[in-house]
């Protein structure tokens, strides 16, 4: 049917007269119909949009069909040549170009021949036509290409393409900078746009088009400067062009928004395919801003430390990993870990001290067991990650320290990490230490001093002993006391506080920090001669507070049952000694500064073999292993005394005693010796620990030191303790009366003997007064174990008050005494014990 196209409609549209259906509902013919599949954001669904060229017989106009009209196209109602009346549309000016967005139309004729020879608006005359065709052709080409390319974006290669047509290759899927500045043809520039959707179509072939594009990448001169914008424009242009991409509106709007927001990042337009690498300048963020929810990030960092390659084995199989620590200009620190293949990729690339740009890693929560950096996250790199070396940046420090002074360390928790700086005052030799699991490890100790007036022992393990240890040793030997900075040392509680190295610790000898210089100056001035208190106490246990206890407390207080052994001092008598096996044959081979002392086995031919040293010796050592029974007024316990303590107790070396007994067969002499030892009183330092013997838990006491009792000093101790007690709470007074009975016993008991009796009496009197009077008293009185805190007046026996407040009491100014009722005392009350000697 013959239909008249609304002539001049296009012109009117173009010049703004007509902008929507309100003005005119033109009848136009579809001269071009292009489907642009748009995959938005990797959605599976493709929303095809149709781009049309509408003709009024004279001119052509680009338009986009709303998706609602897609069905018409698919049906075939709208096809090339269809005549339609657009009933609901809008003409928008987009980047200087008019696009007609059609929401509704009426199909008048579905199939028709092209009427007239409509031109693209803006074409210049005849040239237009051929250009058109060319362009069309090219356009087609490009369009085709653009279709192919559609949705892809990336950097457009700089292809100075004289041919419009040829342009778009580079554009394929490229988006972004139109490098194509050099293109003489405007069209060329459009190629960058082509990145969009083959923007190429846009234009290349058509000068007009390019003009239209003009604002966009169109113009070479503008392009370069508008590099970042080019893309956007490109996108724009693209959308503007007859490429149906996203609805122009959105692209139009989204574009500027995006570009304004993130100029470096390509807007996520229509992704048609894999995203090509974006080479826009990276956006560098500080380490502190990294989090798992961050999109693409890049950090500029210096590698502050690099760990060794480690292999591991877990249920999923074998693997390897390595990690390195990073530091950025703001002082942020983070650790990076690479596993398996990624290790191969990056291991060689990473050099400590270099500055790198790192991006596209995964952020994971940090493993605090291994990672001691102050960051909640750590980076895991994968094969998509990038590490790029860049030139040194002075603003990024080489190392970050959080130094603490040694006196602070005293108050810090064990197993926490710290950085230290100090002067090395002494350094020991490397000793091999046997670990519980049987492996040997090197250990080396050094003393570190700092301005807080304290010194601490720093223990180096493993490799540190050799490398840094040797260096430090050399320096110390030559008289220089070097400044040592230690990063990531663990605080331990072994004999006071001390610091140990861990795998990721780092030593810096004579570093060039302001703190180091300060320290050096201070040392020169005063530190050299100053006195230092060590927070790491020596092994001899001198630092240990002497805790006086009575034997009954070992059981009562369940000493030794906690994880660590308990060290106590008791004043007790040896009441019995096992005479069999009082010594053993020991290995005399020196291991460091101590003899091996492991039991050697008799080879039968007079030589002795040590398992540990794996050697044979002719003469073995004899070392004491005395089982003695210790007794004090509260109870008795077995203890084992080894060599040193044994010698003190017995008064002779184990070897001699052995000879006396076995070699010389001097039984009598032997017996005499033993007898003389028995019932001697000592101050014993005991180590109490619970150990498991074939399913049984036993509390074992080892005599660490045995000292003959110095009565005078002991008494003083006791007096002090008594005083403390008096000052203590009143509740203890009733109990104290109970042990006074003991004093009475001892006092009376020993009054008979002349020599040091009274001294003894005092001592005995004093002994039970050791801090635990209350408790002891409790036991004593009740016979059964403690009912501490039961207050009853010793004087009158009522429960309402203590003896201190007892109304029946007559108190003297110098102290309080109770008309003690012996009732509370147990069997021995009031009467002297018969076993005077030991008591």
């Amino acid at each position, binding site marked *: 049917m013959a239909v008249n196209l609304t002539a001049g409609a296009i012109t009117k549209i173009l010049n703004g007269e007509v902008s929507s259906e309100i003005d005119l509902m033109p009848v136009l013919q579809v001269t071009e119909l292009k489907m642009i599949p748009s995959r938005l954001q990797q959605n599976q669904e493709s929303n095809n949009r149709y781009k049309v060229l509408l003709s009024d017989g004279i001119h052509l106009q680009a338009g986009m069909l709303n998706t609602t009209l897609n069905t018409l196209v698919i049906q075939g109602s709208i096809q090339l040549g269809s005549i339609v009346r657009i009933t609901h549309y809008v003409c928008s000016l987009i980047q200087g170009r008019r696009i007609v967005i059609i929401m509704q139309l009426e199909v008048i004729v579905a199939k028709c021949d092209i009427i007239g020879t409509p031109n693209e608006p803006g074409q210049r005359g005849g040239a237009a036509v051929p250009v058109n065709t060319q362009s069309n052709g090219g356009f087609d080409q490009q369009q085709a290409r653009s279709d192919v390319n559609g949705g892809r974006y990336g950097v457009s290669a700089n292809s100075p393409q004289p041919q419009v047509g040829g342009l778009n290759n580079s554009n394929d899927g490229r988006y972004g900078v139109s490098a194509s500045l050099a293109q003489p043809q405007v069209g060329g520039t459009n190629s960058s746009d082509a990145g969009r959707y083959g923007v190429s179509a846009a234009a290349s072939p058509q000068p007009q088009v390019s003009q239209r594009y003009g604002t966009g990448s169109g113009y070479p001169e503008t392009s370069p400067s508008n590099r970042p914008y080019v893309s956007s424009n490109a996108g724009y242009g693209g959308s503007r062009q007859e490429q149906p991409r996203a609805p122009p509106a959105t692209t139009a709007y989204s574009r500027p928004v995006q570009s304004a927001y993130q100029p470096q990042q390509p807007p996520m337009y229509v992704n048609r395919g894999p995203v090509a690498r974006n080479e826009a300048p990276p956006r560098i963020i500080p380490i502190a801003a990294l989090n798992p929810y961050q999109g693409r990030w890049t950090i500029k960092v210096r590698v502050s430390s690099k760990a060794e390659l480690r292999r591991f084995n877990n249920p999923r199989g074998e693997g390897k990993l390595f990690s390195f620590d990073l530091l950025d200009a703001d002082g942020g620190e983070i650790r990076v870990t690479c596993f398996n293949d990624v290790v191969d990729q990056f291991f060689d690339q990473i050099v400590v001290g270099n500055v790198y740009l790192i991006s596209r890693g995964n952020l994971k929560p940090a493993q605090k067991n291994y990672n001691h950096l102050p960051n909640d996250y750590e980076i895991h790199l994968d094969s998509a990650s990038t590490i790029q070396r860049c030139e040194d940046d002075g603003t990024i420090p080489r190392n970050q320290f959080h130094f603490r002074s040694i006196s602070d360390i005293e108050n810090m928790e064990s197993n926490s990490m710290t950085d230290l700086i100090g002067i090395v005052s002494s350094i020991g030799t490397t000793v091999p230490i046997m670990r519980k699991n049987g492996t040997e490890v090197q250990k080396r100790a050094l003393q570190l001093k700092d301005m807080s007036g304290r010194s601490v022992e720093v223990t180096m393990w493993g490799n540190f002993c050799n490398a840094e240890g040797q260096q430090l040793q050399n320096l110390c030997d030559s008289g220089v006391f070097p400044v040592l900075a230690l990063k990531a040392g663990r605080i331990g509680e072994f004999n006071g506080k001390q610091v140990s190295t861990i795998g990721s610790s780092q030593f810096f000898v004579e570093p060039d920090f302001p703190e180091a210089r300060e320290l050096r100056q201070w040392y020169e001035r005063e530190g050299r001669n100053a006195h230092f208190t060590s927070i790491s106490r020596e092994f001899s246990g001198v630092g240990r507070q002497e805790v006086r206890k009575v034997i009954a407390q070992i059981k009562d207080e369940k000493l030794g049952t906690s994880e660590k052994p308990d060290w106590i001092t008791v004043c007790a008598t040896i009441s019995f000694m096992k005479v069999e096996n009082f010594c053993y044959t020991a290995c005399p081979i020196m291991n460091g500064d101590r003899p091996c002392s492991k039991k050697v086995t008799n080879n039968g031919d007079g030589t002795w073999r040590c398992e540990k040293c794996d050697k044979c010796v002719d003469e073995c050592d004899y070392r004491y292993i005395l089982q003695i029974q210790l007794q004090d007024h509260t109870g008795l316990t077995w203890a084992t005394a080894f060599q040193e303590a044994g010698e003190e107790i017995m008064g002779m070396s184990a070897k001699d005693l052995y000879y006396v007994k076995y070699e010389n067969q001097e039984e009598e002499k032997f017996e005499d010796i033993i007898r003389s030892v028995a019932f001697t009183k000592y101050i014993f330092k005991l180590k109490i620990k619970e150990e498991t013997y074939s399913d049984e838990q036993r509390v074992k006491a080892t005599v660490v030191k045995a000292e003959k009792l110095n*009565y*005078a000093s002991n*008494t*003083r101790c006791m*007096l002090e303790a*008594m005083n403390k007690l*008096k000052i203590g709470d009143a509740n203890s007074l009733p109990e104290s*009366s109970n042990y*006074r*009975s003991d*004093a*009475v016993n001892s*006092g*009376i*008991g020993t*009054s*008979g003997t*002349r*020599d040091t009796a*009274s*001294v003894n*009496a*005092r001592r005995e*009197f004093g002994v039970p007064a050791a801090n635990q009077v209350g408790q002891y008293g409790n036991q004593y009185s009740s016979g059964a174990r403690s009912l501490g805190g039961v207050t009853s007046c010793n004087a009158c026996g009522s429960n309402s008050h203590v003896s201190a407040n007892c109304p029946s009491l007559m108190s*003297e100014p*110098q*102290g*309080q*005494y*109770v*008309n*003690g009722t012996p009732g509370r005392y147990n069997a021995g009350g009031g009467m*002297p014990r018969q076993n005077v000697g030991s008591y």
Partner: protein
Amino acid sequence: MDTSSPSAFVNGALLRRFIGQKVRTVIQVTGSEIGSVVGKSTDDLQIVVRGSSPPSPLTTYLEVIGIAESDNAIRAETWTNFGNTFDTQNYNELCKLANGEFKHLFI
């Protein structure tokens, strides 16, 4: 063991409380004559001890058990050499405690 006549531990200051009673004390000998020994008590007061048969030679420290005659004299029945080293402070404390807080333990 004979506990029929217990003696109280005294130092110089406490002696006056037990006049006429049996006491015992340790003194540091400052001088000796026939029949008497003069010494310093553990609280630095002078005590004269009369009696027969003080031991000879006398060591620095001497314990005497006897009847208190006055606040600075004792008639000794028993003398014992306590040697040359002695902790007077401890003994002093003992005296104080034995007659004060813990009197019941002693007599």
